[in-house]
């Protein structure tokens, strides 16, 4: 499998995701945001960070980068796209995923490990979570409070496009286990064709048991399976 990680000015999880892709033997290239075309790739990753310093609105300026046209083309062709944290925010700004990511409910940056329930295994990113659908991953964001109109939320639920929801350590999805105020405890969503995943938690930071967890590995294992 071949991947491209787009590097924007202010991306800061680009190295982390590159390390993860390499660990799972996915052949990766780093692509500068100002390039006009994507190299041949099965997967495009929009990494976490503070592209353009989060100025104007998170992900907004990056969504107008030169490379984005080709990323959208890649998506339309059914190519895989994974947006993590700021990458998720960029996907929303490009319109590839619906909704908005508002500031966290408590108006504070939040960096901690959270429990997640995996709700859709029937896609390229999550198939190997079937064995274990209650997982732990770190979040680190200021704007991760997912919001969408009621009809959008309804169709995400109806079409089973919510990949992850925040839950407690027993898997219960309730208000107390929602770290940032996201509607319906949403932590990650898929588009209707399920070739695009946007998520706030960072799987690339949890691929090694020594870092207190490896529940992020399944994303990469799923991509390969």
């Amino acid at each position, binding site marked *: 499998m071949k991947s491209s990680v787009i590097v924007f000015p*202010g991306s*800061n999880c680009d190295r982390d995701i590159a390390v*993860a892709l390499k660990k799972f033997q996915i052949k990766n290239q780093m692509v500068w945001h100002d390039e006009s075309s994507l190299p041949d790739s099965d997967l495009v990753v929009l990494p976490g960070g*503070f592209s*353009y310093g*989060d100025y104007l609105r998170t992900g907004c300026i990056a969504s107008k980068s030169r490379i984005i046209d080709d990323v959208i083309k890649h998506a339309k062709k059914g190519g895989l796209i994974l947006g993590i944290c700021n990458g998720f925010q960029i996907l929303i700004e490009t319109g590839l995923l619906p909704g908005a990511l508002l500031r966290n409910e408590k108006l504070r940056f939040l960096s901690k490990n959270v429990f997640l329930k995996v709700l859709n295994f029937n896609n390229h990113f999550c198939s190997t979570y079937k064995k274990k659908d209650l997982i732990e991953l770190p979040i*680190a964001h200021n704007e991760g409070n997912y919001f969408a109109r009621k009809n959008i939320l309804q169709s995400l639920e109806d079409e089973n496009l919510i990949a992850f929801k925040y839950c407690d350590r027993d898997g219960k999805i309730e208000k107390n286990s929602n770290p940032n105020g996201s509607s319906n405890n949403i932590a990650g969503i898929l588009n209707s064709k399920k070739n695009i995943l946007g998520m706030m938690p*960072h799987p690339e*930071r949890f691929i090694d048991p020594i870092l207190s967890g490896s529940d992020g590995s399944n994303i990469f294992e799923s991509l390969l399976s």
Partner: protein
Amino acid sequence: MKITTKIISNHGIKPEEYKKILSLMGKEPNLLELGIFSAMWNEHCSYKSSKKYLGKLPTKNKKVIQGPGENAGIVDIGDNDALVFKIESHNHPSYIEPYQGAATGVGGILRDIFTMGARPIATLNSIHFGSYDHPKTKNLLNGVVSGIGGYGNCMGIPTVGGEVKFNSTYNENILVNAMAVGLVKKNKIFYSKAKGINKPVIYVGSKTGRDGIHGASMASAEFDKNIDKKKPTVQVGDPFTEKLLLEACLELMKDDSIISIQDMGAAGLTSSSVEMASKGKLGIEIDLNKIPCREEKMTPYEMMLSESQERMLLILNSGKEENAKKIFKKWGLDFSIIGKTTDTKNLLLIYDNKEVANIPLSYLSDDAPVYDRKWKKNKNQKKIKKTKEIDSTQLLQSFKKILSSPNNSNKSWVWEQYDHTVMGDTIQKPGGDSAVVRIHGQNKAIAVTVDSSADYCSANPFLGAKQVVSETWRNLISVGAAPIAITNCLNFGNPEKNKIMGQFVETIEGITDACKYLDFPVVSGNVSFYNETQNNSISPTPTIGGVGLINKLECMMTMDLKESESLLFVIGKTQGHLHQSEFYKEVLNIKNGPPPEVNLFNEKNNGAIVSKLINKKLVNSVHDISSGGILLALSEMCILGKIGAKIKVPQNNLNLYEYLFGEDQSRYIIEINQKNKNEVSKILEENSIYFELLGNTQTNILELSGKFKLSLSELSKLNSSWFKSYFKEE
């Protein structure tokens, strides 16, 4: 413009210092020249009150590659890897404008690290606020924490540890000390010393604005009633630009374009150009029309004294300009050739083709005033006789009070605002004895910690300073690291007062004693004087940042209890020192008396043996015993490990309070599996280490035989509620 006495004093220059300027220059300086003298001669840049004593600190051993005097210190960690680290204060600006003050404190220390060619891999901080119920504290705490997070998070460098303390001594002068650690290959270190004549001098980074003018001078004076008017002296940070600057500099550093590099920190363009040229015994010429400016009609005076952030000064090898320019353009940064090195040994500034300042560099550095200030020895505080017997039925109540007090509460409200997992190498996050960060792609890691003990230091600066260094050492030992070296941030009041200068002198003696004995050299640091408002000085607060190496990840240790039915040993002798303890302060409101003494022999010996037990994999968990004594240390182990304990006070002549809350030094609690009891006891006995059995672990309950039982959930709740209720979040 005529230089009047008012202008001179507004520049923070004393009359006798002005006389010295006149005699050096042989003429009256113009305003720009006066401004440059003030920027270089202030306390913050010249270390004029501290220089005499800083030289006494031990700064070398076989691991030290670079000691004090550069942007940061460097130590060898094997395999051609080196660690670059330093701690710095940003106290004054953070009190005036907490968000920006703290943010630019982080920005400044990060630049010190990557200036040397290192990629920053961790930051830490030590932040001190006034009493929690002081009207300014909540806002300052909130602002400082968001500022630190705002900058570090955007840079993508994990904030892995630190300390947050409240004490009324900081009501009018908070402390914000930021530490950063970077990783560099030993053969790819960059220095600030200029070399060669006629080499291009390059300005890169952000444009120069009117922010932070005279910031360093502001930080070299006490606060008065008009403090709000000082806002313009606080710099405004832009972490996004700094991230770009970091990447651009590291990209340029891949080849041999750069001769030397220096960040523009305190006193901006002035200090960076003067320092680079002076170190190289060269001259420097700058055409101020070439400075990229953010605002219109900036004067040479403003350009030279601005402390706008995210700027660097480089001296390149001739012919490398174009390639360098391409890199900075790619990252969207300013790049301007502003001058050249010369052989004149002068700082020459040109504006509109006219010479606007010309000062021999030695006047600004070598000839800067050095004071041998008068100082007074600190009076030793005597132990007070116990006025009343403490009723032992109040034990549980006292314990709960200590456990839930602001200073001893769990600080996750603070550190969850800092991204501590970015870069994917954070193994031990904030909340342990030391943070542990893996060296990327390798099976080794570094341990880092920052510590301070203001109350100990206030009661006795010499003993207190010795204690802080020892605690730093112990915190590194506790995670399985071999301690390497420290950086120090020395926060004091006005050194022109004998008492304050005495505190400083004795602190240096204390640090020196401990560092020499433990072979734990000081490789970098800074001094922050004038933390004083209307005659109220802060307690002397040396903050020590320590680093250590964990050679094999398998030998890393953590403090969370691992299993029930294991044994708990206390290493080191408990003598029941309660003066300056949390128990005296929080429960009995007794503030007098001496701090605990450190016996460096025991410190070193106990530490060495604990390390040995860790390396032999004979212990399950280790935690050092510090403020709050045995009971608080054990509670923290229980809470983190979600395992309870049943303990019994061993036979001795101490009362319960002395045993459980005494803050004697050089002690650890270790958890060992029953099967290792004999082997551990044998090693401890063979090495004449004092130890005793405290009890054993169990599920769910922390219990003191015959006295109290407390469920883990209650224990955890007591320890973690304070911040949430302070900010009314629950």
